[in-house]
């Protein structure tokens, strides 16, 4: 079983990212679960969302306490909350940031960064202060985690994103390309 946690702010699309990832995995024949943090957070507040992926039916319905990957859609959250909380020993962190992985201090944990904001705005997805980066980040996921293929992610976008389907796919593709695995 593979467990992913997304961090973002209410309204930034962490929940959608988690759903899209689950849907993509499902399209690859995997069993999936995806859920937001169960709370009453308002727009702007830090939120989290989760995805579980497995080859066999997923029985457990507990929260995710020890994710395999953490994805931070908003680097300003780092410091505000402990994004690495509970991360497995060999876990990975993907951060939307202009900075280099080395600029982040998470001990031994493997950190990846991507300027998803740049990519998103370039493809006309949201504004600088309010970029829609969930699709770009999934491209990065596909590259660095590698357990879901880009085809499935694109299909998931096609089927679930209501507007700007092409732009979103392009953002994901670009992220996939620029990302170093």
């Amino acid at each position, binding site marked *: 079983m593979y467990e992913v946690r997304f961090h973002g*702010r209410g309204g930034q699309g962490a929940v959608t990212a988690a759903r899209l990832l689950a849907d993509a995995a499902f399209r690859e024949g995997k069993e999936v679960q995806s859920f937001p943090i169960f709370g009453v957070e308002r727009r*702007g*507040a*830090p939120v989290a969302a989760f995805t579980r992926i497995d080859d066999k039916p997923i029985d457990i319905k507990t929260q995710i306490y020890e994710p395999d990957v953490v994805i931070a859609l908003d*680097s*300003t*959250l780092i*410091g*505000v909350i402990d994004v690495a909380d509970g991360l497995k020993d060999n876990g990975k962190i993907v951060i939307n940031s202009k900075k280099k992985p080395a600029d982040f201090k998470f001990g031994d944990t493997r950190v990846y960064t991507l300027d998803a904001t740049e990519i998103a705005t370039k493809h006309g997805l949201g504004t*600088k*202060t*309010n970029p829609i980066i969930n699709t770009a980040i999934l491209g990065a996921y596909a590259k660095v985690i590698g357990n879901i293929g880009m085809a499935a992610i694109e299909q998931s976008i096609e089927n679930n994103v209501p507007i700007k389907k092409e732009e979103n796919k392009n953002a994901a593709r670009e992220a996939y390309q620029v990302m170093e695995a």
Partner: protein
Amino acid sequence: MKITIGAINDKPGSSKNYKTGSWRTLKPVINLEKCKKCWLCKQLCPEGCITKKEEGPQINYDYCKGCGICAHECTFDAIIMELEER
């Protein structure tokens, strides 16, 4: 911390323990020179995080969520919103 009988909360204003400043992506910055101390910003801030000071309004960034109302409503353009640096 212990739970209370009937979930009463006997700490008025204890919400202050939670710093909503972390929610901010844009940050209001006051230009005291332009400010006319009309206190409209204080009046209209949803967070109640603008206080009256001798020198003009002061924003408590621990709570400011960066909504931008103060800047938008200031008749004298004395407040501007800047991208938050963290």
